[in-house]
């Protein structure tokens, strides 16, 4: 328009002015003479758009989809178990470190045996956390019992740390009468009000906005605690992820989101899941501070979660943690991951980058652990796990009544009728019903 006409008009130049909105700017702006751009820029104003001041630029450039360098990963322990931080070394006591370590071994052993039990038909379903034991136990250790946990499903170590026994795990998986779950949920869907661990729910990422809601409630109670919500890399694609992060930021909710980026969502690799640099960069899109950490480094996890928790509580704002790791497990017992990835890859991560091995090297070097204690621990845990499974299998199944209770707070009349009707039918036709249901 006028600019183009002027550009071809020899009477315009660095000293002539063009009306740009309400401002007179030198014509050189359109030619781009560096010397005079600086002069012109000082005439530019910021604009008070709704939402805040934004300054203008005459350079047209698109923000890149991702930066050239990926966000680096915070790590404390190297592969040989040498710590880069003296300070951190002194923060973790021997007691805590050994509880973490034995928790990791216990989790791994429990997973091994329960997985086998499913293969043998003793359990209907199971899901392991192989390779992610550090995330489980180290983050649990960094929290307080008052912090409310909304997990996804690969975080049973949180419960283990807080006091859930192997028998408790077994009872829930076997769906017996002793289980806290009254046989209502499929295996690994643990929950415990006492341990502030919200019952696992199958639809992915639903726990994220729920976590913000719980945090909102904590905020109103003004408690010295936060909410910790876990998700996998795949869950970050769900709509609920975006709603939750956005909301958490807007509501100033004390939530720590911990994403276990283990590279796989069943058979979908992260390269097919998103185009961004993982999940850590997404925090900034919502105005949330984020950090990427080595998920196989127990000390780094402990450090980061502890800091995140402090920020969330003291500054009342959400934090996003992306823990880089690898899903050594198949997705679950319904999956055979060798169908879509190489056994070499799995073996590599299982051995070279095992979080348990790495942490063991550190505690051994500190003089807190030895081979003797190692073999004792393995024997002991194995025995306990087997015992828990055998006991759980022997336990009675939940009684008939438990099919009808808890739909509502109070048993409604239609369910009373149905139960009565069912009992009468069982009485009249016992041969049509299984014998092992306590009536």
């Amino acid at each position: 328009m006028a600019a183009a006409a002027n550009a071809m008009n020899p009477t315009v130049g660095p000293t002539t002015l063009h009306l740009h909105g309400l401002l007179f700017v030198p014509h050189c702006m359109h030619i781009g003479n560096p010397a005079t751009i600086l002069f012109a820029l000082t005439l530019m104003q910021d604009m008070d758009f709704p939402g805040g001041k934004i300054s203008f630029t005459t350079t047209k450039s698109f923000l890149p989809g991702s930066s050239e360098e990926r966000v680096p990963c915070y790590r404390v322990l190297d592969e040989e178990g040498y710590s880069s931080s003296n300070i951190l070394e002194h923060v973790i006591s021997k007691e805590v470190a050994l509880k973490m370590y034995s928790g990791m071994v216990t989790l791994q052993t429990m997973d091994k045996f329960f997985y086998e039990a499913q293969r043998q038909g003793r359990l209907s379903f199971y899901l392991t956390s192989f390779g992610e034991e550090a995330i489980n136990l180290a983050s649990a250790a960094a929290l307080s019992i008052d912090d409310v946990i909304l997990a996804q499903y690969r975080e049973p170590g949180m419960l283990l740390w807080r006091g859930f026994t192997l028998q408790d795990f077994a009872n829930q998986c076997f769906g017996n009468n002793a289980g806290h779950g009254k046989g209502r949920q499929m295996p690994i869907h643990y929950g415990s009000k006492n341990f502030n661990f919200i019952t696992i729910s199958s639809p992915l990422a639903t726990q994220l906005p729920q976590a913000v809601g719980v945090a909102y409630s904590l905020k109103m109670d003004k408690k010295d605690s936060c909410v910790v919500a876990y998700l996998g890399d795949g869950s970050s694609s769900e709509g609920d992820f975006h709603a939750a992060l956005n909301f958490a930021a807007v509501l100033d909710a004390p939530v720590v989101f911990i994403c276990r980026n283990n590279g796989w969502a069943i058979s979908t690799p992260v390269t097919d899941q998103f185009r961004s640099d993982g999940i850590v960069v997404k925090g900034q899109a919502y105005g949330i501070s984020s950090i990427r950490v080595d998920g196989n480094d127990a000390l780094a996890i402990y450090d980061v979660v502890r800091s995140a928790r402090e920020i969330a509580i003291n500054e009342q704002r959400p934090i996003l943690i992306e823990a880089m790791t690898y899903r050594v497990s198949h997705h679950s017992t319904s999956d055979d991951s060798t169908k879509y990835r190489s056994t070499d890859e799995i073996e590599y991560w299982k051995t070279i980058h095992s979080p348990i091995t790495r942490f063991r090297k550190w505690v051994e070097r500190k003089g807190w652990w030895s081979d003797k204690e190692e073999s004792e621990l393995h024997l002991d845990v194995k025995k306990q796990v087997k015992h828990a499974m055998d006991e759980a299998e022997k336990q009675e199944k939940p009684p008939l009544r438990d099919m009808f209770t808890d739909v509502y707070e109070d048993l409604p009349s239609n369910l009373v009728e149905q139960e009565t009707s069912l009992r009468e039918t069982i009485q009249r036709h016992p041969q049509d019903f299984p014998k092992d249901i306590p009536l």
Partner: protein
Amino acid sequence: MTDFRQKVFDVKEENMLGLLRQKVGLRGLSAPVIGDYTQRLCPVASAMRHYSSATKQMTVRDALNSALNEEMAADSSVFVMGEEVGEYQGAYKITKGLLDKYGPERVVDTPITEAGFTGIGVGAAYHGLRPVVEFMTFNFALQGIDHIINSAAKSNYMSAGQINVPIVFRGPNGAAAGVGAQHSQCFAAWYATVPGLKVLVPYSAEDARGLLKAAIRDPDPVVFLENELLYGESFPVSDEVLDSNFCLPIGKAKVERKGIDVTITAYSKMVSFALKAAEILEKEGINAEVINLRSIRPLDRDTINASVRKTNRLVTVEEGFRQHGVGAEICATVVEDSFGYLDAPVERIAGADVPTPYAANLERFAFPQIEDIVRATKRVCYKSAAANA
């Protein structure tokens, strides 16, 4: 069109008050089960509230607003969230004045994400707050329906009683006027199929106050289906209704109009249509009993069946779609429990089986009108002007 005929059953027309007679060919109902039925269908005690000599009028909007206000004042864990509920005073002004009175912590304007704030509401309820989540319309609640069903309705059961969810989801449901397909669907039947939810459908100002208060106080998740066109309607309210402790029982229907010739069930806006139809029918000698359902889950089977056993004829009315609708459930219930009492086939009046059209003339054809109710009622009465044959 919205009128449908049912298959004609071979029903004896003799008066079948009293014991249910067994016939060969019916599904074998053995004695103990019959005993259950008669025990269950005890005469409905008249705990129903009648309008006392009411001097005050109240709109449904004010009824809802006052109920919210009172419950928030009485219990600091009650809070409201939704789009535009705060600064804007509510998309339909139901939450007017609440932000000023209770502040932004208890009246939360949410970003636009039904999935988000439904989930957040459920999470807050998990931890002991009592959220009242407003949807601008239940059509938009579809974006958060996973949380209503999988996070709210099933949680108490799946957690073995450890996590109850004292949440209320409320907002306009069903048809308005000229708002098209994505703003007009009735979701009563959808939510009413889900165990773990309670589904309420207020009609009058009294219903609105009593049921909303009951819903907020209830420990289970409640879906509270209002109607946009009823918000501005005025109803007489007694002093009892205006009392801050006034609650209506969940699961009890109200007989809005007593009659002896035919039972008409309706909920929400259709109650007014049913009442108007009853007036027209009265002039033609048909004395209709109109039941305001008030609650779809639990459905007040006792009241419905007691009424049909008295009148021997049934017409159900709803704005929602016919297939798997509320009327389908009522008809099945009555056929199951009171088959021998029916003197005519049951009739369902429902919305046309099309996404709601926008054009006013087409929209009129898509929903039940008073004339449809009148004609259907005459049909079940075999157009007889005299009392039951």
